[in-house]
């Protein structure tokens, strides 16, 4: 391997324009720009969507548990009559022929034994299906009457979940949570991992050995116990979850950065910088980290989905997001359990996640290309 060609070392002063150049190049990458738009849309949907969504993410509609996605409003025509019957069953009155038209329902009611109680209109009001119920009691015969009520129009374009909550609203709130977790936990992992890995790889020798054995120790400790301990000692709290996830996920990042650094530190431009007396800290900052950026960014785009899914496991163990809040990971794992009886519960969250990840991947690639020091 003596035929190794000589690398051209980037001049230290190029770092001044590094970000500017990168932005320029990124702007020329259509896929990356489209991804940025998608990500911004998703972020806005997560941030403001829950405020404008037709339903609150925590609103329970007991009559509409696991209903299918539909562009038609619920209750659908064939559900109105059974819904009226079941709502009034509790009132213990006899029902005549029920008519439905123009968003109104007309129900003749009667009782054999006693006079009608005007309060029974509340039975209809309490149901999610009807509103403005009114009972007109027959003046001649107080045992007979006519009940009228408006039929509610509820849209569940992505269906509802196992508790009867609008899935679309839940996906919106889950986006907020998951994007937050993804961004923060990955940022924690990135900062610790890159700094740790670059230092270990650059300094080398015994310190590298000790630092990397510490990583080995962290890898081997039983993760579930780690989580259980966090739950017990710190309660449930989102910040903690970011820390827990970041604290585990930086390990891979550190190993990858170190691997790259080991190879970089023998390169001529690093050795030249060393010979010129540049401090180790500056070399790591100016030469090592920018040169590992490509791989680190790719790995980051892999880490974000991993973190988002890991969160569902943490929620399962009691750390992290709790009801009625939810996250994409939790929605997907709920959907997986219901994939055979309510496939939409899996489909929509999974589709959201896929769109998010495609955007992240293309943006990651674009960033990687833009930051590539060899192209500078």
């Amino acid at each position, binding site marked *: *391997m003596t*035929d*190794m*060609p*000589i*690398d*051209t070392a980037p001049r230290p002063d190029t770092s001044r324009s590094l970000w500017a150049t990168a932005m320029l190049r990124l702007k020329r990458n259509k896929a990356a720009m489209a991804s940025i738009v998608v990500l911004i849309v998703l972020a806005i949907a997560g941030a403001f969507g829950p405020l404008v969504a037709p339903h609150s993410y925590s609103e329970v509609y007991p009559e509409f548990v696991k209903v299918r996605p539909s562009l038609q409003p619920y209750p659908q025509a064939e559900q109105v009559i059974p819904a009226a019957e079941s709502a009034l069953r509790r009132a213990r009155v006899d029902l005549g022929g029920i008519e439905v038209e123009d968003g109104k329902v007309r129900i003749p009611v009667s009782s054999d034994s006693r006079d009608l109680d005007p309060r029974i209109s509340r039975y209809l009001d309490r149901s999610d299906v009807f509103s403005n119920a009114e009972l007109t009691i027959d003046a001649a015969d107080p045992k007979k009457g006519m009940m009228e009520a408006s039929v509610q129009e509820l849209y569940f374009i992505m269906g509802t979940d196992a508790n009867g909550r609008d899935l679309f609203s839940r996906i919106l709130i889950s986006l907020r949570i998951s994007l937050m977790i993804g961004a923060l936990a990955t940022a924690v992992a990135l900062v610790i991992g890159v700094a740790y890995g670059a230092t270990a790889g650059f300094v*080398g*020798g015994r310190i590298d*050995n000790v630092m*990397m*054995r510490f990583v*080995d*120790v962290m*890898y*081997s*400790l*039983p*993760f*579930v*116990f780690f989580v*259980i*301990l966090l739950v017990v000692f710190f309660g449930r709290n989102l910040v903690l979850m970011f820390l827990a996830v970041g604290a585990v996920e930086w390990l*891979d990042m550190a*190993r*990858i950065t*170190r*691997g*790259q650094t*080991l*190879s970089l530190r*023998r*390169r001529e431009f690093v050795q030249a910088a060393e010979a010129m007396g540049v401090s180790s800290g500056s070399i790591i900052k100016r030469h090592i980290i920018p040169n590992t950026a*490509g*791989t680190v*960014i*790719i*790995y980051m*785009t*892999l880490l974000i*989905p*991993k973190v988002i*899914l890991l969160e569902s496991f943490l929620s399962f163990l009691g750390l992290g997001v709790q009801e009625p809040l939810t996250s994409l990971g939790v929605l*997907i*794992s709920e959907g*997986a359990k219901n*994939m055979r009886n309510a496939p939409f519960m*899996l489909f929509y969250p*999974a589709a959201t*996640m*896929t769109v998010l*990840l495609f955007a992240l*991947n*293309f943006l990651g*690639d674009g960033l*990687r*290309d833009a930051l*590539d020091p*060899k*192209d500078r």
Partner: protein
Amino acid sequence: MLSYALRRLLSAIPTLFIIVTAAFFMMRIAPGGPFDQERTLEATVMANLNATFGLDKPLWQQYAIYLGNLFQGDMGPSFIYRDKRVHEILAEGLPISMQLGATALVLALVLGCLLGSMAALRQNTRTDFGVIAVATFGITVPNFVVAPVLSLVFAVMLSWLPAQGWGNWNQMLLPVIALALPQVAVVTRLIRGSMIEALRSDHVRTARAYGLPARMVVVKHALRAAILPAISYLGPAAAALLTGSIVVEQVFNLPGIGRYFVQGALNRDYTLVMGTVVIVAIFVVVFNLIVDLLYAVLDPRVRYD
């Protein structure tokens, strides 16, 4: 390099010791014990059980006993599976997990390198986007979705393969696919990224300029450099793969050891979890050593001194 390897192996001993100690006390700080289940036990019964398993002794004494036994190769009795000792349980399950994991690992490496290089060589073409799409899908859709879907399609609907169980080659197929898919995806992405970088690097350009055949350049020069990040990733990933996956084992009802990582911890089966910790630790230490040695082999610039 040999002396480096030896030194690393020597440093594994204190590493393992630290891991065992840290894990032991970490588990015991966690609330709940192996006998706290949905069915609360009578106080007398609980006292008898604690005495039987030595849980009534002071913690440091239990630690000393555990360490002493471990030194002699005995990992103690399982708190949950009471008819077996931990080393027997692990000896039954580990080969199965390893067999599955190793197959998935090889698959991930081969397919990942292939797809990743293909995409990189045809950057921004339809092939590239196709590969990225498949890889993204593999990363997005988690195991707990892929595995039941595979079983539903190939076992329940098509009746081509068994839905569960272990013992025949055709029972391995679906679990291996479920295990390998996310790894293939990750390796593909890592290789593609670093391959693009490597293809632009001067020595590959030079090699091409010399008129070396393209395939040779890719394999000998570019892939050699591009595989480094994938290898850093696969070191620990291999340790995880070979020690089994809880999801895949549960979905396909496989008798591997993956389930013990979560179930063992939830059951507070201290000795069994310690057993898995020791195994993972050994795998992590060994694989990270292999990875570090591979660095030096693949990239002559890497030197350990």
